[in-house]
């Protein structure tokens, strides 16, 4: 087996793979994708197995797992579906933010509820006029006694509409200061009066769902402000490394899923009297796909190990996210080619990867933003 991983990590991978095979077999995945429904029972099975306890500190009821552990989980979920990995990432990333930036009272209140599955969490940052340019958000929160009043509109909020979901929303608390300085992070129940959710008709990620959120005079208790007023940007930065490397792990897993699927098809599908995988054109395609995914995986786990060692790995992680997401999009595209007309048919799973992969190079920082950052860290800052 892979010597990079401990016996426990191999067990962890095995458990998550078995969990997914049992609670999310291919026909189930096909059905929830077709019905665009959120798989609550699958989420509950993750809770029961302790997946959400893994990355959190033992002091709050977590298991004290490492970044590599979280990447293993994301990779195995991603192997089945990139869409479902968003469900895991949403709750995990938001919870880790609370663990890093919340007060002791906030951690004691939110983290056990998150780990026990009583609530789930999703992140909401983008707005109609604020995508890559996060600082341009215009949704506001204004203090009113022991509450804040939130007004505005959010877009592309992944998983916001699931039941018992707490939206981790970034808003402007001081519109006068330099644009990134006036941001704050609030935890808002998605059924708070004044919130209106609209599920958007996207090309993929049907199960987690992508939402538009309207906030109209939404009263949020002041103790749901995380990290302090105007400290939102710091919250974002504090989680960036772990989030990006775990997101890269999910992309790697999904890419591996594509290669496995395409390989099995190429061995099985016969044309001109032999499996199409024995034709060099297809064989080389698969060899290239497998090679690029292996490279993306190696870079991703190297970065995860760097994070666990406490090293500043921002440049490497940005490269890992860029390369993993682009590799996923690439192998899904090639997988479609190998599957031929079957790939274009919705009864087959490759088209789901093709749709889900397309957003990988856009979400959580576009490939262009990642390249800007990498170039910047190489001393090539825009003038």
């Amino acid at each position: 087996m892979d010597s990079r991983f401990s016996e426990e990590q191999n067990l962890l991978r095995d458990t998550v793979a078995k969990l997914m095979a049992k609670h999310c077999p291919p026909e189930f995945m096909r059905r929830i994708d077709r019905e665009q429904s959120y798989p609550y029972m699958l989420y509950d099975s993750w809770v029961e197995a302790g997946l959400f306890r893994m990355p959190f500190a033992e002091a709050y009821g977590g298991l004290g797992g490492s970044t590599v552990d979280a990447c293993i989980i994301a990779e195995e979920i991603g192997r089945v579906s990139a869409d479902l990995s968003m469900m895991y990432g949403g709750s995990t990333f938001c919870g880790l933010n609370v663990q890093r930036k919340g007060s002791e009272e906030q951690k004691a209140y939110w983290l056990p509820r998150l780990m026990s599955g009583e609530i789930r969490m999703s992140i909401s940052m983008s707005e109609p006029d604020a995508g890559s340019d996060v600082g341009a958000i215009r949704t506001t929160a204004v203090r009113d006694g022991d509450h804040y009043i939130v007004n505005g509109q959010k877009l592309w909020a992944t998983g916001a509409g699931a039941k018992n979901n707490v939206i981790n929303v970034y808003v402007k608390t001081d519109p006068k200061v330099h644009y990134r300085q006036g941001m704050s992070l609030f935890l808002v129940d998605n059924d708070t009066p004044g919130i209106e959710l609209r599920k958007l008709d996207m090309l993929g990620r049907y199960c987690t769902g992508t939402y538009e959120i309207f906030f109209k005079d939404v009263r949020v208790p002041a103790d749901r402000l995380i990290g302090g007023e105007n400290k939102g940007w710091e919250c974002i930065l504090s989680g960036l490394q772990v989030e990006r490397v775990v997101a890269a792990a999910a992309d790697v897993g999904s890419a591996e899923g594509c290669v496995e699927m395409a390989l099995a098809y190429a061995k099985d599908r016969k044309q001109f009297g032999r499996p199409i995988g024995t034709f060099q054109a297809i064989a080389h395609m698969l060899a290239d796909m497998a090679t690029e995914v292996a490279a993306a995986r190696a870079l991703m786990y190297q970065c995860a190990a760097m994070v666990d060692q406490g090293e500043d790995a921002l440049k490497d992680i940005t490269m890992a996210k860029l390369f993993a997401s682009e590799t996923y999009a690439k192998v899904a595209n090639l997988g479609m080619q190998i599957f031929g007309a079957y790939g274009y048919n919705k009864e087959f799973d490759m088209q789901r990867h093709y749709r889900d992969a397309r957003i990988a190079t856009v979400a959580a920082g576009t490939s262009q933003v990642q390249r800007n950052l990498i170039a910047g860290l190489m001393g090539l800052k825009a003038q």
Partner: protein
Amino acid sequence: MKLLVAVKRVIDYNVKIRVKADKTGVETANVKMSMNPFDEIAVEEAIRLKEAGAAKEIVAVSMGPQGCQETIRTALAMGADRGIHVLTDIALEPLAVAKLLKAIIAKEQPGLVILGKQAIDDDCNQTGQMLAALMNWPQATFASKLKLTAETAEVTREVDGGLETIAIKLPAVVTTDLRLNEPRYASLPNIMKAKKKTIDQTTPEALDVNVQPRLTTLQVTEPVKRQGGKKLGSVEELVDKLMHEAQVI
């Protein structure tokens, strides 16, 4: 009561077995290894007995190369309490395994030993029976139901004619059949706990057991590939072929 569970490291049941090019055995390099599925059932049953209060401690034993530690760790992550690894690079035959288990039983004094009825690699189905004979203990093989009292075990066995329920005195040897239970997968909290559980390592020499193989493998070959069938036009044609081609009627 202490339970001893034997767990074997085998090629994962999902892997397509390939014969080595030199025909000396099957390919194990870079192949996924897992716990023998019948042994997983044995571990699960032991855990259920412990959860029901019928047992206090579960000891998982595996024998073979260093990699067996991973198989023991799997048992620990499922819920076994500690492990024993008999380290050897010699390919062990059922009698050698039974003798090693006997030596471990002498030290551990378990009230019940649970094993898989057979391993999916060599399909011998011998170790449990040999162990019972060496110990002169009662045995209940192919168990599909197991109930313990302080001094006896009531075991339902899957036999050719149906189900047979027997009562045996403890200590005893039980081997598991497929329908005994559905094994759990290791939960993440248990995986983290398994890190801290101990695995003692010993060797056949330390246990004073001669494990040299008594069989010599001459050759391992792939099963003969099935030839494609033929579609016939009529019953007459079939009878004709059976008479003249196959010459069976």
